[in-house]
């Protein structure tokens, strides 16, 4: 393989390779290495300090919890690249994505990509191949990132105008120029896309990436966001993936999942969910509330959860019901799937996909029947229907009480995640954030550019 990669590097005149991974927060991290270093690292991996998985987005070490054996006094962990993801990113620069492992080659428990791969393999062991797709939402601004920083990420001008709501084509040309530039880059890098459109809030857009296997879906998500950021920078614009950057509508990262068996959609039945889909939904619903902090990982994530604004607020699922947390699409041989609607645009797609699959696996293995589908609008309901946790601290508490999700996903990953989320909660409250005043400066500073 090394010979063919050597030839590929030469053929494309590659002068540097960006080795990339996604950490637990969902940030795209990496290093730039020479072609020679890249080739030597194909077997050894590329060393990173373990704090790549231990710093918050304000660059402070996350403390307050027990650490696994791969954390130490700044131990090395190793990024092992997946050469199937090697692409020419730009003239002279290649890009390749990998997983983080311990020195002995075992994946670190907190590596989201490794966790997703493990869930996919577990389903493969049950006889299913997973098909998934991600919807990426973001908000674009006329200002450059330099201007955005100088303004504290406040009072920015949405790109394309402020008239109307979603789907409008009457956008100023700068909006189209940006979107076309992103599309051109996606095509150059080989990311299959399906559609994009104006979304609900001013400056907000949605990008639909084509269905794929889960790890590829998440890889495409990470790279598409990187392209959107690089393109914005090149054009003197800025973009944010904050779940809510102002009091406008928030932004999501809906995930679509189905299972295939022997090339056929295992979720399909003529008149509703198939038995497989029913059990998959049963597991997803049994783990929906404990999984909330994965889907809504930041302080700001919870500001999205407003009845009638679009995001789900209750632990419900329904057929063709977009007000529920899980929408089931049924009766179509090709399109039968679930749409997991809780995640914010600030969530880590590797991690949330792994969590959805873990819930599904729990449902299939334990033969958990889905509760009755919710028939009504799932907003503004009287008491009696469980609401999703509406703060990070409530979501953490729900996860700590859970065993079903942890049994499949792994207790080490869950414990580490809980520790980092408790840190996030504490930093917000003791570091300048306020719970009752809308999006705070603390949140803008922390989340506008990352993850």
């Amino acid at each position, binding site marked *: 393989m090394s010979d063919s990669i050597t030839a590929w590097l030469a053929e494309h005149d590659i002068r540097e390779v960006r080795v990339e991974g996604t950490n637990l927060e969902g940030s795209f991290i990496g290093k730039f290495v020479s072609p020679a270093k890249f080739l030597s690292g194909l077997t050894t991996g590329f060393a990173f300090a373990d704090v790549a998985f231990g710093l918050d987005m304000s660059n402070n070490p996350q403390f307050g919890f027990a*650490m696994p054996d791969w954390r*130490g006094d700044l131990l090395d962990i190793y990024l092992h690249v997946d050469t199937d993801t090697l692409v020419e990113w730009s003239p002279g620069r290649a890009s390749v994505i990998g997983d983080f492992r311990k020195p002995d080659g075992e994946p670190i428990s907190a590596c989201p990509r490794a966790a997703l791969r493990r869930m996919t393999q577990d389903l493969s062991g049950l006889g299913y191949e997973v098909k998934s797709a991600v919807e990426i939402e973001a908000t674009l601004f006329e200002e450059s990132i330099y201007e955005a920083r100088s303004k504290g990420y406040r009072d920015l001008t949405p790109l394309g105008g402020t008239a109307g709501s979603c789907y409008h084509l009457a956008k100023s040309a700068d909006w189209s120029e940006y979107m076309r530039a992103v599309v051109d880059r996606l095509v150059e890098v080989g990311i299959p896309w399906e559609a994009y459109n104006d979304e609900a809030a001013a400056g907000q857009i949605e990008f639909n990436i084509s269905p794929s296997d889960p790890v590829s879906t998440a890889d495409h998500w990470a790279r598409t966001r990187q392209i959107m950021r690089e393109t914005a920078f090149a054009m003197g614009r800025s973009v944010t993936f904050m779940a809510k950057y102002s009091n406008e509508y928030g932004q999501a990262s809906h995930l679509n999942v189905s299972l295939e068996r022997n090339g056929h959609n295992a979720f399909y039945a003529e008149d509703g969910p198939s038995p497989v889909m029913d059990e998959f939904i049963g597991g997803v619903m049994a783990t929906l509330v404990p999984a909330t902090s994965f889907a809504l990982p930041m302080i700001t994530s919870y500001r999205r959860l407003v009845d009638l604004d679009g995001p789900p607020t209750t632990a419900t699922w329904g057929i063709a019901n977009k007000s529920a947390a899980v929408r089931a699409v049924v009766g179509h041989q090709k399109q039968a799937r679930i749409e997991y609607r809780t995640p914010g645009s600030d969530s880590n797609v590797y991690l949330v996909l792994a969590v959805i699959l873990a819930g599904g696996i729990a449902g299939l293995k334990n033969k958990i029947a889905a509760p009755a589908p919710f028939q009504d609008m799932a907003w503004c309901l009287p008491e009696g229907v469980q609401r999703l946790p509406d703060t990070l601290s409530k979501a953490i508490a729900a996860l700590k009480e859970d065993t079903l999700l942890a049994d499949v996903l792994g207790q080490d990953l869950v414990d580490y995640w809980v520790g980092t989320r408790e840190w996030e909660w504490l930093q917000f409250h003791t570091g300048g954030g306020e719970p009752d005043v809308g999006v705070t400066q603390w949140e803008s500073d922390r989340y506008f550019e990352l993850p």
Partner: protein
Amino acid sequence: MTTEADLSGVTVAIEDDATPFVRTTARAIRLALRRGAPLTAEASSDQRVVVISVKGDPQAATCVLTDDRIEISHGATAEPHATVLVDGYDLTVDEDASTGDPSLINAVAGLLNSTPSEDWHTAALEFWARTSESPGMPRELVLECASTHERLVLGAGLPTYRLVAEGVDLSRLCTGTVGFLEALGAGAVAIQGTLPQLSVMSGAFNKMRFDV
């Protein structure tokens, strides 16, 4: 509301999903009541409302005091009987910067800044009893008074962890009066152990400070 009736007969209740500041305020008041600090007549004559705010920081809590109950919730309510400003490090009340009913300010200061009655040994033993079983905790914790070099060894075996500070700082740490990382940043404590242990110890001291 989460409530805890104290031997003093005063119930301290905090709202559900309480903020860290509400939690540490409740901790300080409960500790003061356990030490015998009175809920003075001035504070308890009728329902009295006090806002406690951190200087230079948006953290705030509203305390509603009656003769046998203190309810604490986050944020600053409008038109309190007193607004008490505290230092976020250790809740020291700045009486000069506080406003409103002076006797109420004084009463709240007495609750938030009660003088430690137990020595650092007693505080450390309580800390160890409450945290030693938490995941990742060292098997042996050595606390050492910086000036006298007096040592207290809690637990036994490896791994071990060592904390060195003045006795009063050890007491304040072990009761949650000050935060561990903040005390470390202020140079009030020195430590010997691994970085993962620093994380675990930080969590243990958070348990004392915020009851999490």
